[in-house]
Every structure is written in C-alpha cells, then in structure tokens.
C-alpha cells in the first residue's frame, strides 16, 4: 500500500512527538463490533509529496476488551526515532543559523476488519512536548478529538536581548503547497528585532534550545558564568620485567591514565521579569541545547567592505569557511567570534519565582554539561 500526502495548513496537523501520540481507531459504525485494526505508519523526511512506498511500521491489534468500540495505538517513539539528525550551526554576524532536521512528516492509513482502508491527512511531528492538560489533537475521520491548547504563541516581546546578537524566530509555515513543501521549509525563520536589550555583563553566552514546539529558540543570559572541569583518572602501579635493571629515580613506578574530563558550565540568567520565567522553564525541559560562547569581539565599521578571502575559521574541529565574504554594514555591531558548544541540560530542579515572594531577585543558575571532553577524545 502507499499513501497520498496532503498539504499541511493547520495547527491540528502538527504533532509534538516528545509526548505520547495516541491514535484511537473506530469502525465506521463506531460500535463494539470492531475486532481487528491494522494500521500503517509512514514516516519520511524531505519532500512532502514523496512518501515512502511501503509503510515504515505496521501496527496490528485486536480489540482489548469486549465493550471497547475502539483500538488504540501509541506512535510517538517510532516517529521520534526518525528525528535523529537535528543540527544547529550558529553563524556570525547577522546571518541566520543553519538549522536542519527539526521534524518529519508522517501519515496513517488504517483498516478496521474488512472495511475499506482509511487514509488520514499528512501530519508533521517535531520533538516538542505538550504540557499537563493537553491531549493529542484531532486529525480527522474516525479519531476522537481531544482537548488541545494548540500551538500557544511564544512570547518574543518580553525577553532579554543583546544588541550584539541577531535574533531569529522559528515558526511553522502553513502556506506551502504540496509540490514545494519539505520537512525543512515547513519551518521558517523570521528576524526578530529586539525591543529590550541589555549589556551582557558576565560571560557572553547565548543558549540555543529546542522549545516546546520542537523548534530552536534563544535565551540570552546576563549573569555570572563559570566553567568547571572534573577529571576522572586512574593511577595504577607499573610492573617491570628484569627489576634489577630499573632505576627508580628515573622510571615512574606508577602511571596515570585519564578517562574523562568533563566540562560543566554554570550560567546565571541575570535578573528577570516574572513573565520571563516561562522561558526558563522551556530551557529546562528542552531535549537539545547548544551554548554559543562569544569572545566579545564584534564587527567594527573599519571592516566594512573588507573581503576575507580563503580564510578558514575553526570552531572546535568544525570548519566554517568564510570565503569571499564581504562584511557589510549590516554586520556591524554583531559578535564576530564565537564557539558553539553542544551541551546537555543538567538542571533537574526548577522553582517558579515571582515578584511577590522573590522581589527583584528572580534569577536562576542554569547548569550545562559539555558533551565533549576537554581532552578531545573523538575517534
């Protein structure tokens, strides 16, 4: 079997696969006479109009209890396992970061007993997540609608901004046609102009994270940033052949081998307004986080019009070539040098702070662990 894809033009076709996705199937009569459901799940990346010809997964289940008028499947893990190459690459100046693989298309085709197979509209899933009272949305057909708060607008106005960073907002584009829509361009980047900017006093960091929609977002911390390294090493004895020949004033009798060198970043958010706490919550729940560490250097006016030919800027073993790029007036004032650090989120406790009880002291220490050792051990 195969499926015919449909355009994606409503929020109801967006699924957040970091939370369970329950599919409930009925027969046409929606009664308890249904017995067996076979459901094909097609998952794909790339062009919307080129789904796989065979199902990625086939689900099969008989009715669980005699009184049931439905058969249910939970499909988030198989879908989520396809969102496995999410990439974020920061760009200097005013260039938008390169972002790939935030989501996948999926489509369901099912058959109840001997009834005609039913094909549901194509959907798009990200690694976002739903909050407590949100259930899965309605696709159509014989699937029950459930409470769904939709894609709540994310507040971009009440945020800290740095004037040295160019911000982009990631959002779903519901205007793409069947022939043009891909799993990349269904998410568009829109430049956001800061309204409140602050001077970064501590470390110059930017936290790039997957928000609850499964799209990349930024948080700009202003507080103190510390960096810590923990070394895990073993010191072992050393044995020798022919011990009489060993001069132990020269030869070491112990050897030390380092297993890991873990880097931890603790970054204070700086003082926040009460409404900004929601964003901190999102950072803490985020499944994927990058730290962008700026050196502080910015593009200056003297660089206008200067061509940086065949120069390679190395950012932690990753090569970015800025060949024949002319620094334009638009870049001026933005950070020029940076290091992108893939980190894991180590914040396990989170307390909502409020103006009422915490006065002006609304700030958090965010702890991130670098996924790479200080001593490079990539093999």
């Amino acid at each position, binding site marked *: 079997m195969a499926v015919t894809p449909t355009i994606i033009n409503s929020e109801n076709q967006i699924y957040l696969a970091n939370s*369970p996705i329950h599919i409930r199937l009925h027969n046409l009569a929606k009664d308890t006479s249904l017995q067996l459901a076979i459901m094909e799940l097609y998952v794909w990346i790339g062009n919307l109009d080129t789904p796989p010809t065979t199902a990625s*997964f*086939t*689900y*099969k*289940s008989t009715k669980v209890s005699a009184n049931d008028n439905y058969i249910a*499947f939970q499909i988030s*893990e*198989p879908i*989520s*396992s*396809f969102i*496995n190459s999410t990439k974020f690459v920061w760009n200097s100046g005013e260039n938008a970061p390169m972002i790939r693989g935030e989501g996948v298309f999926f489509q369901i085709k099912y058959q109840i007993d001997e009834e005609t197979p039913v094909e549901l509209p194509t959907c798009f899933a990200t690694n976002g997540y739903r909050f407590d009272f949100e259930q899965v949305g309605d696709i159509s057909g014989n699937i029950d609608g459930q409470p769904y708060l939709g894609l709540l607008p994310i507040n971009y106005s009440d945020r800290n901004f740095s004037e040295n960073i160019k911000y982009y907002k990631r959002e779903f584009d519901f205007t793409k046609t069947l022939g043009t829509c891909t799993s990349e361009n269904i998410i568009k980047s829109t430049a956001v102009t800061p309204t409140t900017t602050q001077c970064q006093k501590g470390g110059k960091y930017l936290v790039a994270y997957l928000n609850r929609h499964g799209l990349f977002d930024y948080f700009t911390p202003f507080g103190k940033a510390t960096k810590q390294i923990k070394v895990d090493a*073993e010191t*072992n*004895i*050393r*044995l*020798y*052949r*022919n*011990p009489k020949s060993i001069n132990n004033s020269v030869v070491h009798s112990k050897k030390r*081998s380092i297993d890991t060198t873990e880097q931890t970043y603790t970054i204070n958010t700086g003082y926040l307004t009460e409404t900004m706490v929601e964003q901190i919550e999102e950072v803490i729940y985020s499944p994927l986080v990058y730290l962008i560490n700026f050196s502080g250097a910015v593009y200056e006016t003297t660089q206008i019009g200067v061509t940086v030919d065949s120069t390679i800027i190395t950012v932690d073993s990753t090569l970015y070539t800025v060949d024949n790029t002319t620094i334009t007036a638009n870049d001026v004032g933005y950070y020029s040098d940076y290091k992108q650090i893939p980190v894991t989120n180590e914040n396990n406790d989170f307390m909502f702070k409020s103006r009422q009880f915490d006065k002006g002291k609304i700030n958090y220490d965010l702890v991130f662990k670098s996924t790479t050792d200080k001593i490079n051990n990539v*093999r």
Partner: protein
Amino acid sequence: MTTEVYVSLNGIDYYRLDLMKSETILMKYIYKDTQDLSKIFSPYSQSFALQGSLNNQKILGFLGETKIVKTKTNNVFDCKIYNNGLLAKKGLLKVTEARYENGKIESYTANFTTGLLSLKDRMGEDKISDLPSVPITIDWTNVSVKNYLQQGLFLDNSGKINFIVPFISNNRVWQVADINDATKLDNITYNPIADLNGDNFIKINELSPAVQFRTIIDLIKQKYDLDIIMPLENETFYNDLYVYCNKLEGSFNNSVYYDVINPFVYTRFLDTFGIFTPTPPAKPKYYLTTDFINDIFNINIDTSPTAPRAPFNNINNDFYNESCYIRVIFYNVINTKSNENIDLSIQVELIGGVIFKEDSINIVNGGNAEFNISFLDSNFTANQIKFKIKVLSSVPITWSSSTVNLMYDVFYFGDIKGTFGFSSSLNNNSSTMSMSKIDLFKSLPDLKVVDFLTSFFKTFNISIFETSPDDGRLYWLTPKDIQAQNKEYSKTEVDYTDFVISDKLNKQIANDYNYYNFKHKTSKYKSNADYLRLNAYEYGQLTYPTIKPTKDLSEFKVETNFSIIQSSPVIGLNVNTLYGFTNENPSAQQNNALRYKPNTEDFTLFFYNGQIAPRTPYLGYLNIYPNGTKAIEPLNSITIVGSIHNQSGFNLGFGLIETATNESLYENYYKDQTERLLEPNTLQHTYTLELPPSELVLNYANTNQGESNIPSGFRLQNDIVIQETRYSVIDATIDQTTGKTTLNLLNYV
C-alpha cells in the same frame, strides 16, 4: 578506546547502537571445559544493558512495542563489535529483556555470543546415524565381502566414504589347525571339501564392515556448516581410524520392488486328487500380465471364461471361486549379517502408492519364505488390478531363487477342486534386487552427535579456538598442535607485564584432585571383561595414583563414549584378531562349538593396519554365488585391525596397551597438563589488567621473527609473561569496551 556495537535486522545493513557511558560488555573466554560441549565454544558475553534510546529502539525494530508487526521472527540480531574501528568480534546479539519505566523503554538487556554457541542446541538429539543426507550403502553379498576382506580399503556405493571389512568374528573364536583335526570345531583353515553346512570356513554373517572415523567428523562439519581447521587430519593414524559397524538389526532399511525376470505362462496346477489334471480352460477367468520394465503386475478378469472341463463335458455345474491369490516364494533366504532369524515381509502396493495388503513371516536363517495374498473380485476396478510387490527386510539377505504365481481354484463335480493360474520359471533376482546392502551409518551403534563430539574432544584433548572474526572458522587443536612452529594457531609468548593495573594478586590452589582417571567406556566385549578381571583396571585405562584413594576422593575423570578392544591371537595363525562378541554366557551348538552374542551396542574404534597374507595354510571362506552355487574358497589375504596403529605406533589406550611402548592418548595429549596440575607450586593466579586496543583484536600482520603466521592480540592458547613468571590461560573476562581484563592464569614452574 572506542567500542562500537553494530546490529542488523536483515543481516545486510548494520546500524550502530548507542552504548551507555559506563557500558561494559564482558566477554568470557574459557580455555576449555570438556564436561560441557556448550561451554567449549567460547567466547560469550555476560549480559549487559543497552540504553533504551530512540536510536536503539529503532535499530532493534521497536522490540518491546508489541503492537508493531515485526519482520524478524526472533530477538537475535547479527552483531559486530569494533574496537577503534577494527572488527573485534562477530556473532549474535541476543536481546533478552526490555525494561520500561513510566511507559518508556529505559534499557534493554542483551548478551553477545559467537554464532557457535547454539551448536549444541542445533545438534540436539541428533544421532550419528542421522548425519548422512542420503544412505551410505555398500553391497553385502558373499562375493563382495570376500573381496572386501581380502583387499582392504573400499569406497561405498556413492564412491566417497572409505570402509573396510576387518578380520573380526562377532560370534566365535576362530582356530587354524590341520584340516583333519576333529577337535578344532571352529577350524577355518582352507578345506575345499569341508561340509558346506558346517563351520570350517569364514562366513559372511559373522563379519561386519567398519567406516572411516574421519568421515563422521566430515559429515558433522557438513551438516552443521562448520568451517574447521584440524591439524589432526594430517596424521596417518587419524586417517586409519575406523569405527566398527556392529549393529545388526533394525538398521538396514532394505525395501525394494520385486524384480520380474521371467515371463508368465498359463499353467494348471495339481488338483485335489493330485493325479487328476483337468484340461485348462480355453478362456481362464484371471489373466496375469507383467510390465517387465516397471515391475508392475496386472491381473485382469475375463467376464465370460470357459469352464475347465468344457472340452470333455457340457454339464455346466463347474464354477469359479470368486477370488484369486498371488503366491510369492523365496528359496533359501540367508541373513548375510548374522545367524539370527529373518523378519521378511511383502506389501502389495497399488499403482498410486496405496498399500493393498501385506504379509510378513519370521524364518530361520537359510529357510524358504512363502507369502499368499488373495484378491476378491470386489477388489478389482473395471475388472483390473495393477500393483507392485515390495519386499522388506530388516537385515541384509540373499536368496537362491524366487517365484511369483497367480492361482485360482475351480470346482467341478461339486467339491473337487482344480487350481489353475500363471507361473514363471524361477527368477534368479537376489542379485538384481540387491537386498543385501548395508547402510554403513545406520549400522553404527546408537550415539548422539553431541556425545560423539565430546568423546572425540576428550580422546585427543581437543580445544576449540576461534580464528579471525571475519571468517567464522574454528581451530580444533590438540595440545600438541598448539606447540607447532609458526602456524596461525600456534601458541606464542606475550608479555603483559605493562598492562597490569592492580597491585593485588590472588594465588589460589587451582584444584584439589587426588585421583586422575582416564578411560574409555566400560564395554561389554569379552576380551575387555577378561582384561579387567585379570588386571583390576580396564583395557586402555590409566589412573594416577594406581590405587584409588579411599578417603576424600576428588577425581579428575576423562571418560569417552568410545570402546576399544584388546586384540587376541588366532590359535595356529600368526595374526591377531579382535573378539567382536560380548561377555555373556555363550551357547553351545550340537557339536559343542561355542557361539557368543555379538556386541551391537558399543561404539568401537580401531586402526586399519593393512593386509596380511597368511602363509599356507590359507583360510577358507564360504562363497555363495547369485545362482546359488556354494563353494569354499581360499583367502589369500585378510584385513587386519587393532588398537595400535602399526605404522606410527600410536595407540588408542590412555595407558600403554599391548605392544605400545611410548605413544598413548595420555602421553600425547594429557601428560603435560596433568603433571602441571599435580605440582604443588602450580597455582591459579588472578590478575587485573587493562589490555590496550591492539590486544583486543587479532592482527595477522606479525613482524616477530619466526612468527609470521601467528596473529598478535589476545588468544587463549598464548603463554603470558608477567614480571618473572610465565603462565598459561585458564580463563579471561575482557571488558570489550575498556579493555579491563581479569585473567585467571596457571603458572609454569
């Protein structure tokens, strides 16, 4: 060090599993445990946990999500383990458990095995006799057996399997003496005028063939798809080792269709008076015709036959019986494998394969077998019935001639019966039907393949080693092979001093055996029972100390399922034979000659020692030709076997037997090991090491002088030097992810 584990759902595309940060894949390598075959095939891993990441879930086909239809029928995945990009292990990943927490998969439990661990399961209850895919048969007629006995090596009917017929009687003690010496009841000296019904010659039915031992190993390799390198195969004694096909009954699977040779003619048989022979009717009721090529019998009913006496008498009170019958007779049926009675049966098999009727009888050796199968008119379809006659025997047989008759009775003058029908002249079809074939493997005593292999490993103290993970081959090596110079399986010496990481060392008493016992199975052979009675230990057995401790016995026992037989001289002949019969009380014939019971149960090994031409007097052999002619003929040579290989001096006993002076199983394969274990200074040392990645993979590029063929990297057969002591490996547990290793070593003194 980086370790990567790849698995495949379809055996072609491999995907990398996410490993936990502190992943340990402990591979267990055991030098050997001869007690349990499943443990011989090292290495295998202890179970380890895999994280339940989405990546792992996807690679493992969402194992645990029971509503997703699986393409794989089991949870065993083809698996490869790489260390620093080099293939270190290839085998199977068995996922045994998926742990859920909060509805999400937290982790999987899996273990890694080489593909061979399941060999014991695959062999299961298979017997040696099940090994060949097609029957391995040889002709077993008087004429052919005479050839076998005289000429030594032969190939089976498929031309692939070596066999011999050794100079062994399974029921009596042969003697050689003057042909006029009436006191020698089993005198087999050539005497052309001896009584053809007597005992003064070698008979076909006291002989048995023997199949080459290595063909069994070869068939095991073939059946279980094993790629094995075994240097033992180059030894002449190994190739001259044979197994006695001493099972007599229920093993020959002889069933053939009756071969029609002569045409049938309309015949009248004797009537009830015995003298009155009525003229045959012009139109008999039953006709028999035959398809000679396909051996199909065809009986037709003529619906308007003429009465038998029609030419004489027009009183039509004659009537036909409403049935006819087929009479099959085999004359002088001889069991060519033993003196036992013969169970013979025939089946009338209709065209299409349905068995219409069958009949079976038990006859004495040499007797006639007669079968009668009747056909009612109601059995005919459209006045016709077509069938083949199938003859079945559980033992190989020959007969002098046979006949098939169609008979039917006609009554006339009321109750006076005349019998008419169709008959042929006697068919000499014993040789064309070849019911005197022996299936070599079906006539081996019952032994499971697993027990056979275990015994084989014990006999030669064979250990199993892997070659490189790429080719999946195995080395089956004796301790001698490991010592060989510069072979890829040879042992080498490696210095692990640098890799020791723990300052602690345990020295344990390796074992507390106080009695070592090496033996073959206690067999029922008479000569072995006599040997045990005389010597207080078994033939070929070796124990240390000689007297078994009576207190705190801790026995190290190596016992095979094989038997060997002590050789015995033939009185009056400078040649040894083996007694193929048991210790049970013999029965006496009328002339007081003793007849023993053939040993049909013990899996018996001996060496083929070539041919010996007995000087005059020759030995006599009773030959019976296809036409039934009997003749006593001289044998100009005989095939000699024994437990000692004459060419190499190698003997099959663990201890020294008979004329053996040096080579024994113990001396060759167990001595060094046992003597090390007996030394009080030999202790089991337990070291903790961290092996570098180069030791975790086998590398065939060895630059050491004189070791160009020996791979580097950890191998069980290597000797290991740590500081100023040299050790051999007992077992090793290696964490494939970090190289952390626990070695149990046995020091050399």
